[in-house]
């Protein structure tokens, strides 16, 4: 597996060294006042202070969804923190037990709503593996292209919001403008702006339009410039470096114990990417690198995501010119709806359509766990089927659930202003966290 540090000239820190170019001392050293004494011999312990409790409540300006962080402060330092989630718990796992497999797809859209297609594809991949079918080549390459486009869009929102929380608003607009162009392409393809629901069990809902390749290439043209603009603004910015270097540091072993996957784990230096380790949909035939960080701080998480955007661009350019022809759906009448002219003109087509819509796709009884590399980490689905058209149990393995678990330990000991920087670097999407 090839390692690639983020593409920055002299600002790549060595492992274990979290120093910035302008600071004189070590960031992680606590400002230690304990030895200070005043002229009359009193120390800091003699001052009668009380801890202060603040609540970073369910609604807050950092645009990351609803959860609550309750902190006990001593001055600006956080002594203890408690994290409360569940403010967007929508009962996904209960309600999908009353729906058919194809009806579950819109529910999966709203899990990680910044990259809805990735969730759709992950779910369909698990169900298709359960059915024992393999989608045609054309569908596999199209799914790869869509997943990489969504990866770029998700990272844009995450990095944009991360930098906004640190204080720089302009980058957000650069990324959002580039993202709107990609969104236009996906809207022309699927009909929706955010919750696409484009995949179906056995393939895709409909085929690509003829000018899809040109549209995608035109939309991707603005992205390298946006990335260059943003990195140019923050790379050497004193404020950004001070607020992100050495903040929220975690090492790889502790991160693995907490269940981290995805770009946050790669920022700690651990090179694990499901697209390289367990390739699916011909990922092993595309050439791309996996960027890893050195220190596991907020700075690394931001730049790992930016570097991953560039790698996704490489994959899309390789794939978009080589989309094979052929059908997009599996040729199996028990899984895929028949064509409309068959439904309207033949009796068998009508009955087939009726049975598929009323009874649904029926995988054989059994249990399966399957996962993909979502932009946030490993998104897994544990599906139990009892042979009927409705799933018996679907458990989602959300990547940011385990990242949020760690938040308490990352912010205890840090300052209040660091909470937003750390939180934004973890890319917490409440739809996925609470399901």
């Amino acid at each position, binding site marked *: 597996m090839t390692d690639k540090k983020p593409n920055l000239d002299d600002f790549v820190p060595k492992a274990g060294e979290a120093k910035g170019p302008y600071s004189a001392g070590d960031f992680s050293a606590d400002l230690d006042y304990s030895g200070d004494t005043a002229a009359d011999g009193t120390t800091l312990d003699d001052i009668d202070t009380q801890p202060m409790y603040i609540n970073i409540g*369910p609604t*807050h300006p950092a*645009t990351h969804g*609803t959860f609550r962080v309750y902190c006990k402060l001593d001055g600006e330092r956080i002594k203890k923190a408690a994290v409360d989630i569940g403010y967007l718990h*929508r009962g996904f796992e209960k309600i999908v037990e009353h729906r058919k497999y194809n009806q579950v797809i819109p529910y999966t859209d709203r899990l990680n*709503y910044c990259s809805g297609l990735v969730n759709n594809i992950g779910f369909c991949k698990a169900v298709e593996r359960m059915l024992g079918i393999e989608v045609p080549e054309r569908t596999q390459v199209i799914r790869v292209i869509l997943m990489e486009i969504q990866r770029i869009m998700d990272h844009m929102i995450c990095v944009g919001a991360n930098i906004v929380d640190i204080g720089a608003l302009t980058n957000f607009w650069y990324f*959002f*403008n580039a993202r709107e162009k990609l969104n236009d392409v996906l809207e022309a393809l699927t009909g929706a*702006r955010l919750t696409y629901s484009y995949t179906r069990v056995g393939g895709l809902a409909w085929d690509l339009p003829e000018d899809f390749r040109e549209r995608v290439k035109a939309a991707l043209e603005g992205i390298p410039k946006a990335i260059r603009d943003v990195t140019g603004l923050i790379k050497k910015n004193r404020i950004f470096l001070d607020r992100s270097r050495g903040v929220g540091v975690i090492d790889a072993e502790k991160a693995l114990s907490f269940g981290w996957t995805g770009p946050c784990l790669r920022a700690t230096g651990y090179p694990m990417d499901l697209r390289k380790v367990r390739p699916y949909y011909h990922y092993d035939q595309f050439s791309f690198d996996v960027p890893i960080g050195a220190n596991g701080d907020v700075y690394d998480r931001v730049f790992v995501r930016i570097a991953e955007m560039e790698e996704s661009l490489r994959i899309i350019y390789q794939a978009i010119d080589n989309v094979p022809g052929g059908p997009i759906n599996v040729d199996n009448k028990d899984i895929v709806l028949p064509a409309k002219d068959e439904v309207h003109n033949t009796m068998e087509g009508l009955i087939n359509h009726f049975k598929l819509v009323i009874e649904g796709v029926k995988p054989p009884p059994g249990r399966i766990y399957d996962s993909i590399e979502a932009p946030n980490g490993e998104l897994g689905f544990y599906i139990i089927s009892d042979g009927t058209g409705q799933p018996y149990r679907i458990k989602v393995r959300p990547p940011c659930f385990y990242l949020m678990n760690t938040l308490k330990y990352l912010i205890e000991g840090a300052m209040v202003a660091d909470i937003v920087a750390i939180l934004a670097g973890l890319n917490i999407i409440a*739809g996925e966290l609470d399901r």
Partner: protein
Amino acid sequence: MGMKTDTYTKNETGLITTRVDAMINWARKNSLWPLPFGTACCAIEFMSVVSSPFDISRFGAELVRFSPRQADLLLVAGTINYKLAPVLKRIYDQMPEPKYVISMGACASSGGFYDNYATVQGIEQIVPVDVFIPGCPPRPEAILDALLKIQKLIDREPSPKRGVDRRHELAEKPGDE
């Protein structure tokens, strides 16, 4: 900015108060300060509305204020579940009058397709709503249209009655538009 002599100002000194009313309402409607109570996917669509392609600041509602004391338009964007319901009520209560509520999206208006143990089936059970926007998520143009409807609502507000529950009085009569 129409200068209609409405029926309920018949008994007051008509001309001066309606002109002053119209001017005050014009100023108020073009400077709404929204409070985006964004929870789920609709919040991302709201972020798109605020960004340059769909610019909400052309209608004056650019200053999003996350503090309820400083806002006058509560924009509930996303699913509200039972855990978040007391928070929504408290935020609504903390806003000063006159205040308006837009319920954005299917989940806020009626629970969406989450008809289960966790989701409030419509925020009308908690706060009074002025405009509902359907859609999942609604297009940014639909959100701008809702803002224009709120502006039209504000236009019809007469000054003596401001602050009283005005919904049944200001309902659109046939012939309005």
